[in-house]
C-alpha cells in the first residue's frame, strides 16, 4: 500500500520539473532529424507539435519575459521562427530526448496510445468547431488546437513522477468506471492532473488561455476570461473520451451555449467519427506500438 501525498508535496515535486521527456516515436523522429546537416524549421516544428510535453516547453520558453517578445506565442513554428531561433529549440528538444524515455513502462496501466488519441482528437475537433463559435471572445483556431493538445498535460507529469500511485488510480478507475480519474488522483496525490497541469503551465509560462483550459475544462460553469475556449475544450475532451470507449457521451448543450448551430456541429462530429479508425491508427503509430 502506498502512502498518500499532500497537495504541497505534490506541488513541490511538480515544480522541480523543467521539462518532460517526449514520447518514444517523437524522440526517434527528432534524433533522425537532428542527424541531418541541413535542418528544416518546418519539419522540426511539425514533429514538436505532435508531442504535448515538448510543445508545452518550447512555447512556454518562447513566452518567458527574458525574450521580451511582445505577443503571446502559441505555435511551435512561431516559437522557433520568431523567438527562440533554431539552435535553442534544437538544443532544448535534444536535451529532452536525452532525458530518457518517458517513464510509462513503470505504469503499465497508462495507455500512451489512448493519451495520444485523446489529445489529438480534442485538438483537431476544437480547431474545427472553433470556427463556428458565435460568442465572444471567439477563440482562434490555432489556440484551440494548442489548448486541445495540452489539456491533459498534467497527466503526463503525474504518470512520469508517480508511476505507482497512478497505476493504483487507473486500477481504481477500472473497478469503478463511474468515477473520474481526477477523483482518484486527488485522494492519492492531493491534487488532480488538471491542477497539476495548471501549475506546470504557469511555471513554464504557457499562454493564459492554455492554462485556463488545462485547469478548468472539467468545470461546466466556468465563466472566466477565456470561457468559450475553456468550455469548447471541455466538450472536446469529453467527446474524445467517449470516442475511445465507443460511446458518444458528450454534452451537446455546451455547443449550443457557444452559439454553434446544431447542423454545423453534426457535420463536424460526423466527419471526425468517419476518421476515428484513422486517428486511432495514427495514435498507435506515434505511441510507438
Amino acid at each position, binding site marked *: 500500500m502506498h502512502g498518500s501525498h499532500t497537495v*504541497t508535496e505534490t506541488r*513541490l515535486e511538480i*515544480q*522541480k520539473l*523543467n*521539462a518532460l521527456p517526449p514520447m518514444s516515436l517523437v524522440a526517434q523522429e527528432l534524433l533522425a532529424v537532428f542527424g541531418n546537416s541541413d535542418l528544416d524549421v518546418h519539419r522540426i516544428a511539425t514533429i514538436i507539435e505532435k508531442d504535448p510535453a515538448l510543445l508545452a516547453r518550447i512555447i512556454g*520558453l518562447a513566452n*518567458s*519575459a*527574458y525574450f*521580451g517578445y511582445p505577443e503571446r506565442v502559441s505555435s511551435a513554428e512561431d516559437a522557433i521562427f520568431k523567438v527562440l531561433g533554431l539552435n535553442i529549440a534544437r*538544443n*532544448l528538444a*535534444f*536535451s529532452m530526448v*536525452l*532525458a530518457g524515455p518517458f517513464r510509462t513502462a513503470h505504469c503499465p496501466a497508462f495507455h500512451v496510445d489512448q493519451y495520444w488519441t485523446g489529445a489529438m482528437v480534442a485538438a483537431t475537433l476544437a480547431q474545427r468547431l472553433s470556427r463556428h463559435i458565435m460568442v465572444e471572445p471567439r477563440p482562434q483556431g490555432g489556440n484551440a488546437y494548442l489548448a486541445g493538445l495540452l489539456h491533459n498535460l498534467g497527466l503526463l507529469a503525474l504518470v512520469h513522477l508517480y508511476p505507482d500511485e497512478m497505476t493504483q488510480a487507473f486500477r481504481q478507475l477500472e473497478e469503478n468506471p463511474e468515477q473520474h480519474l481526477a477523483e482518484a488522483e486527488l485522494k492519492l496525490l492531493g491534487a488532480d492532473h488538471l491542477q497539476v497541469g495548471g501549475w506546470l503551465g*504557469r*511555471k513554464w*509560462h504557457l499562454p493564459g488561455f492554455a492554462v485556463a483550459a488545462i485547469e478548468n475544462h472539467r468545470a461546466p460553469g466556468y465563466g472566466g476570461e477565456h470561457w468559450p475556449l475553456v468550455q469548447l475544450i471541455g466538450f472536446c475532451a469529453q467527446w474524445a473520451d467517449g470516442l475511445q470507449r465507443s460511446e458518444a457521451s458528450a454534452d451537446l448543450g455546451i455547443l449550443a451555449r457557444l452559439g454553434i448551430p446544431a447542423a454545423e456541429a453534426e457535420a463536424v462530429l460526423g466527419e471526425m467519427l468517419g476518421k476515428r479508425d484513422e486517428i486511432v491508427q495514427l495514435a498507435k503509430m506515434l505511441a510507438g506500438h
Partner: protein
Amino acid sequence: MDTSPFIDSFRELNDSFLKLIDSLSALRGLSSLRVYGQSDTQLLGSSLDVLMQNQDLERCSVYLLKDGKLVNSAGMDWVDMIGLERGQKNSHVPKFASFEVGEGLVGVAAQTGSLQHSRNCEHDPRFERNCRGISPSSMAIGSLISLPIKASGEILGVLNVSHPHVDFFTEAHERSLVIFANFLGQMLVNNRLLNSMEHLVRERTRQLELTLADAEALKRRYAELSVIDELTGLHNRRFFFPESRSALARSLRYKKGFCLLLLDIDHFKRINDVHGHRLGDEVLCRCAELFREQIREVDVLARFGGEEFIIALPDTDLEGAKLLAERVRAAVQDAVFEIEGHSIKTTVSIGIASLLETDSGDAQVILERLISEADQALYFGKHNGRNQARAYPEIACFL
C-alpha cells in the same frame, strides 16, 4: 566510447540554461515594472510578484530597515515563510513583525551586508534566533536565504526566500538573488528620491501659489491706490478730492479766492453712438489735452466721471474763473479732431462755482457745496442751449 558523461553534462547545461532564462526573466520583469511614485510597500509587493512568477520561489518577504529595526514590509508574514502549522499561525504573526539588526539570519544579513544561507534550518543556530522560541520541528522549512538589499553601500533592508526542502537553493539561486536584490535596492532609492522630489515640488508649488495670491492682492491694492485715470492720463477723483480740499483750506486760511469748474462734453453719447466707443474715448483724450493746455500749474484738473471733468482754481476769483472757462469753451468749439479719417467737432458746457468771502469752516463741506453749485450751473447751461459757461452766483436767482 561511453557517451553517458557527455549526455549528462549536456542535460545539466540545458537545465541551467532554463533556470538562467527564468532568473533573467525575473530581472527583465523587474526592470519593466512601472511602479515609481508609489509607496515602498507597493513597489516591493510588485517586485516580489515578479520574482515568484519567474523563479521557483514562492515564499518571499522583505524586511525594511526603519529606525534601526528590520520591519516586515512586503511579501509573506514570517509564519508563512517558516511554514508554521495553520492552527498556530495567526496568534504568532505579530511576534515576527520585526527583527533586530544582528538577530538571526535576517539580522545578520543586515548587519554584515552579506548573504546568509541556511541549507538546513532545523539544525542552524542562526535560524533558531529567528524563531522566537518556537521549535523549528513544528515548521515546514528546509532552507532559507536572507540577503541585504543595498544601494550605494547603504543597507535598506533584507530580502528573504525560503523553501520547505533542505538543500533546495543552489549557488545559481544565490547569484541571481544578489543581482535581483541590487536592482531592487536601486529601485527603492530611486522611488524614494522621486517621492521626496514630488513632495518638494508640491511644497514649492504651494508656496508659489501663495506668492501669486499675494501679488494679486497687491495688484488690486495698487489699482485702488492709483490716482491717474487710465484713459486720459489726467488725475482721477481719488486724487482730486484731497488735493482740492487742501487748496481750498489754504484759500480759506489766507482769505483768497477759490473757484471750481465742472465741464461736460455736449452730446457725447451721440459721438459714441455714431462713431463707436473707441473714437468716443479718443475725443475724451483730445478734450483732456485741450483742458490741460489751458490751466496753470497750481490748478487741479481731474476726470470726474464719464465725460465730466473738474478743475479747482486756487487764488482765483469769479471773474478770473469766467475768463478761463470762456477760453476753454472757445478752444473746444474751435477744435477739429481728426480721428481715423473722421473730422469730429464738439462743444463743452461749463458750470462755475466760487468761494464766498463769508465762507469759513470745514473745507470738505464747502468743497461739496461748491461741486453741487457748479453742477447746477452746468445743467442750467445745458438746458439753455449748451456750449456755454455759466456761473452759479449769476444763475442762482433763476433756480
